[in-house]
């Protein structure tokens, strides 16, 4: 849980470059359908990573991030399909909305922790879901909003994949930089002991507010480009299931590892596609997978891998 290692080892950089390289050439070997899945993994990986800022680095578990993510998706689809705005401007507005929404969530949640934080973010997310469901004139109610909104430059599915890959690399770099910054260290301090932080002069709620809002900003980035990917949004995008699934991605990958989010997203999305999508069977499979992970690798896949590597290194 001590966070991303600050090692500037050439090995680490090499691994990251190799993975990126595989990501770049992947479309030449994959089917259109598989490239779609890979794009989806990258988008939800970014969402899971934004949650990891809170869960792994701040010790606060949010169940409201699906709503923040989906709010951004709604705004982008609404702006392009209903207001005829440029998709690029719509993306900016979507991200701005998510950030403001996160700031509102944060104002209400920063004075709580533990299960109260969880329940409060859950409740706030439910409110957003309720609004999306009921405010039919704007959100289209249960039917949601649909439209081919992806800009021309990105209309080819491979180009779009590469664009999202670059975006995910940028977001990962940004989040990594954020959690390792002097401010990011204060979040880890709050995770470990907020009473000690207060006595050292930190305004703990203010730090949580900034951390939550930044996390919401990154969730909003993911949500805005999800609109380009999906060309459709409905209340299920802001529903609790969305929050839970993306939180599970972060946990399955390993909280506090950042990169684990992409592994968790791959695992869940691959599984989801094996098990004929959103049926009741999917919910059970999800539950069983999560239970197995919690039993055999509570530190998540990447966390487990790191622990094993350390164990191996200590033996030699």
């Amino acid at each position, binding site marked *: 849980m001590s966070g991303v290692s600050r090692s500037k080892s050439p090995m680490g950089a090499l691994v990251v470059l190799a993975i990126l390289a595989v990501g770049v050439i992947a479309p030449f070997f994959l089917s259109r359908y598989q490239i779609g899945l890979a794009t989806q993994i990258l988008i939800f990986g970014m969402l899971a990573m934004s949650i990891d800022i809170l869960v792994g680095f701040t010790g606060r578990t949010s169940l409201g991030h699906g709503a923040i993510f989906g709010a951004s998706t709604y705004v982008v689809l609404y702006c392009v399909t209903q207001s005829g705005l440029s998709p690029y401007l719509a993306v900016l507005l979507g991200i701005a909305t998510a950030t403001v929404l996160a700031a509102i969530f944060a104002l209400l949640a920063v004075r709580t922790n533990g299960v109260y934080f969880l329940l409060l973010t859950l409740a706030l997310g439910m409110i957003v879901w309720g609004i999306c469901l009921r405010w039919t004139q704007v959100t289209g109610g249960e039917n949601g909003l649909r439209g081919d909104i992806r800009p021309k430059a990105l209309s080819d599915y491979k180009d779009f994949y590469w664009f999202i890959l670059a975006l995910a690399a940028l977001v990962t770099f940004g989040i990594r930089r954020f959690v390792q910054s*002097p401010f990011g260290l204060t979040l880890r301090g709050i995770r470990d002991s907020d009473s000690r932080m207060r006595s050292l002069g930190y305004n703990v709620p203010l730090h949580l507010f900034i951390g939550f809002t930044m996390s919401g900003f990154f969730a909003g980035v993911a949500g805005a480009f999800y609109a380009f990917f999906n060309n459709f949004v409905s209340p299920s995008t802001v529903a609790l299931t969305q929050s839970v699934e993306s939180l599970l991605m972060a946990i399955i990958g390993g909280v506090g590892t950042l990169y684990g989010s992409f592994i968790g997203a791959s695992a869940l999305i691959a599984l989801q596609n094996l098990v004929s999508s959103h049926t009741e069977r999917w919910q059970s499979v999800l539950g069983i997978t999560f239970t197995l992970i919690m039993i055999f690798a509570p530190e998540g896949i990447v966390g487990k891998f790191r622990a094993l590597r350390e164990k191996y290194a200590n033996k030699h």
Partner: protein
Amino acid sequence: MAEVALTLSGVAVAFGALRAVDGVDLSIPAGQRRAIIGPNGAGKTTLFNAITGVVPPTEGRVVFEGHDITNLPPHKRAALGIARTFQITNLFPSLSVEENMVLALRGLSPQKFSLFGSPDLSTADQDRISRALRLAGLADRSATVVTEMAYGDQRQLEIALALVATPRMLLLDEPAAGLSPSERSIVADVIRGLPQELTVILIEHDMDLALGLVDYVTCLHEGRLLVEALPADIRTDARVQEVYLGKPHHA
């Protein structure tokens, strides 16, 4: 008379019907070393909590260097120069010693808001951290993760954290609690080595340890101030003997 660092007037902290601190008046001159002694449950830690803002007083006033801090939150009191250690070790367990120290150092610096800045330390900061670690007897331990440290070293880190930001008043809550005799003497040396101008309030059960370190002693009992005396006179005070031993006692 020396300048007064801290004044408590009629400070009380009530938890429901229990008055853990019950109308304490206290005045501590700047630069003084003061011990607060008293049996278990006397209200010593609660008094520290009232001074540092962890538990705001339910009655009375707390004035620090002329500022009325009675209603300030803990971080604003820290900003005025009040630092403390905790009776129950309260560190950042998953972080390294250096990261613990960095957090302690930046508590009052605007650098804590650098959202995307480099984590690297300036040489000046590095020097301050090494100096505080050396003062606390922890030189060369910066890379160790707290959970991997021995308990005694963790107690020393408690003190180092409170020291590195150069506070004006330091509250030590049983810094030697649970330590072996040799570790206690290390902690005693650390306290002896604190800068002259720093006001220090020390809670300590062990009279042998406390009395050798301080200028003046306050004894609390059941939330009230029982006796204030010079270290040389405290052992022979009948009231102190009574609360500590249950009956008069001659040393």
